[in-house]
């Protein structure tokens, strides 16, 4: 018990070091946490379940913000063509966007870290294979690769997660390999070898914990990137299915109505998307800055 308490203290110390005295980063962090909480508790927060067709009334379609609906509630952000409350759609869309991005980045990073460590530790053909695969991936425009994959596998939440995993593993593998190579030249790795430890133990208990830091630092940036990529793909119509709209798909839905003055259908999901990515990026910037001793503003 005591141990966890002290771990918590360490985390608190790191967090206060990272964020104190940087109001932009604090606001970003608070904003991000609000988005996450809203997404997690969507069913209790959203005024309407946008997936439940029984609650929708086509007569409420295309109402502007603050309009009263047929059942007496207020649509704060208006409704779309099917009479869905935009606020509720955005809250549920946020949920899908965050879920897809988090799962894709976590799985992709895990994959990248393992491959990077293997490449560094094994060398030889393993390293060649992994690093050429990284080169191949990096030399391809990401969105094009994802479009191709989705064209082959079809669309769906799981498919877009696969596509985003393919998009995120490569730079993590490269980063992990380079920091693992630095660690491998240090003497404690030699000491571990002299102690007759297996490669697996050296990798998991010596190499991994010491070479993972740079990847963790760029993780928030990857998440915001994945959110953007998912929105792009969904906007293009190859992302999530219409029954599980993400922010990108909601923007696409309203796209047809923009020119006829029904701005609210696209603009609100768009604003939330911008706000979310901005919050994450501000936090990510600060984390990167704090961890980079060469930047003067470290404090």
């Amino acid at each position, binding site marked *: 018990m005591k141990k966890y308490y002290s771990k918590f203290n360490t985390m608190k110390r790191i967090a206060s070091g990272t964020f104190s005295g940087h109001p932009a980063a604090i606001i970003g962090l608070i904003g991000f946490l609000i988005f996450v909480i809203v997404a997690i508790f969507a069913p209790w927060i959203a005024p309407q379940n946008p997936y439940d067709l029984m609650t929708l009334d086509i007569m409420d379609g295309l109402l502007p913000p603050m309009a009263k609906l047929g059942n007496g509630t207020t649509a704060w952000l208006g409704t779309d063509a099917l009479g869905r409350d935009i606020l509720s759609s955005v809250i549920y869309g946020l949920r899908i966007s965050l879920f897809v991005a988090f799962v894709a980045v976590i799985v992709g990073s895990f994959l990248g870290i393992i491959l990077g460590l293997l490449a560094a530790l094994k060398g030889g053909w393993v390293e060649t294979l992994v690093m050429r695969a990284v080169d191949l991936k990096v030399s391809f425009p990401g969105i094009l690769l994802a479009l191709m994959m989705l064209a082959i596998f079809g669309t769906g939440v799981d498919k877009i997660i696969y596509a985003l995993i393919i998009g995120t593993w490569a730079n993590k593998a490269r980063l992990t390999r380079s920091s693992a190579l630095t660690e491998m030249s240090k003497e*404690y790795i030699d000491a*571990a070898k002299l102690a007759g430890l297996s490669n697996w133990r050296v990798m998991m*208990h010596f190499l991994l914990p010491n070479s993972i830091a740079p990847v963790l630092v760029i993780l928030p940036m990857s998440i915001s990137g994945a959110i953007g990529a998912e929105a792009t793909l969904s906007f293009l119509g190859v992302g999530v299915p219409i029954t599980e709209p993400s922010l990108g798909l909601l923007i696409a839905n309203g796209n047809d109505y923009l020119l006829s003055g029904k701005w609210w259908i696209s603009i609100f999901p768009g604003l939330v998307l911008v706000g979310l990515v901005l919050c994450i990026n501000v936090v990510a910037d600060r984390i990167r800055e704090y961890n980079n001793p060469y930047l003067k503003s470290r404090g």
Partner: protein
Amino acid sequence: MNTILTVKDLGISYPVGKNEIPALQAIRIDIAPAQVVGVVGESGAGKSTIGKAVLGLLDQNAIIKSGHIEFLGQNMLSMKEAKLESIRGKDIGYIYQNPMTALNPVLTIGEQMIEAIEANTNLRGKKARDYAIELLEQADVPEAEDRLTKYPHQLSGGLCQRIVIAIAISAKPKLIIADEPTTALDVTVQKAILNTLTKLCRQHDVAIMLITHDMGVVAEMCDYLYVLRYGKQVEQGPANDVIYNPQEAYSKQLMAAVPRIDKRVERFVVPGEESIQGKHAALTYLHDKEQSTRNSLQPILSAESLCKTFITPATMFRPKKEFKAVSGASFYVNEGETVGIVGESGSGKSTIGRMLLGLHDLTSGKVTYRGKDLAEFATEKERRKHSLSMQCIFQDPYSSLNPRMSAGQNITYALQAHGMIKEHEASELAGDLMALVGLPRADKDKKPYAFSGGERQRIGIARALAFRPDFLFCDEPTSALDVSVQAELLNLLRDLQKQFNLSMLFVSHDLAVVRYMCDRVIVMKDGVIVEQGSNEQIFDDPQHPYTQSLLAAMPRLENIA
């Protein structure tokens, strides 16, 4: 007295969090024209801070608490930056610790020298170039004109330092501040560089403020000495008095800890040192090892014509390159014996050790450990098992411990992984071993960053001891440490060796350390063993000219009692 530099009551602090940590307190230094003044102390003593303060190059957050610095009658502390710039380089030259990083890698030597000459003198163009060549010649740089077109990476560290010296004296300064000018260099190079520096300063009447931790260098160079500790001045006086007849307790300790080359001392005098006797638990553990079945007449370890060639494979643009790190090295280590390997950097000392330990493959040759040829094992695993009693103490205490494990885990992790001890025993054993190497038992739960360099090295020793080793390879174990810490560690290693009849192969570039530690000595040069013999043979009656030149180059402290 006629002085060019006067430092009076200087106090400097650095903010750490909300507190201020004093880096220097009440420092008084006077330097007369053409005087060589040494500022000595161990790491953290504030030596470099003095040099930086004189030049106005302190870190931005440094707080000057008191005192003043006067150079040629001008107050340096209240001077504007523009004025300081005109003094730096012109009236005060600076020589850096690492010549390779002090020079700009993308400019040729000529461009850098001429730039400095044009900035600080009236010479321009062709005249500046001619002056640069003249300076290089004065600094004993061979083929001076040719060097002007070279880049720093094409030259050796010693040559680069000569060029830095030439730049420093180019404007005929009154004072040169030399911050550990030879620490990064080999002893034979160090000797020549110091000679050049002294010669030039005599010629041009330049005073030197020599900042160093090396007592030998100080003894050879300095007229007057200031001893610093924890930012305070401990002792000052003419160099000979301070070195050979120190008054203060700390100076006495410091001088007693300096390894001697002219005779083999029995033991360094370290106040407050505990003997390892009486640390029963760890001693019982270490004595409780299987009695090996080897024939005690045979050496525990022998190497026959070891060769290691590093090959850079050919690429499209470059043919294959071979580098012979070690060739034809044969030697043996008897049970309970310490054998030293000395040589300058690049002589292949560490490579030999790495081959013995199986961290490098052999290009050719044979290593026999406890009667078995290490190449005979079918698998890597079996070989490792056989050689578990062969351990290493590494050079760099800052990278030799896993930073994510506590000290105790670092010591016992491998034993646990092999199932040699249980978890509850591990913690106990870690504590015992920590106590044996002179660390508090309770510190076993701290992470490596909480320890100093010397303490980390003790943890490294404890980790090696955990395997109940028969043979220890020590790869410059004290080269990163202060001299008093070095003395403690060398004492500890010798005690351990006597107690457990350990065999050791001890690599060092410092002949004095090898003189203290070793029964027999191997001298290496460019991958070849040039001479081997007993301690007395090598140090008192060296046969090979290289050994003789190494010994002659070592700075000496002759007459300390």
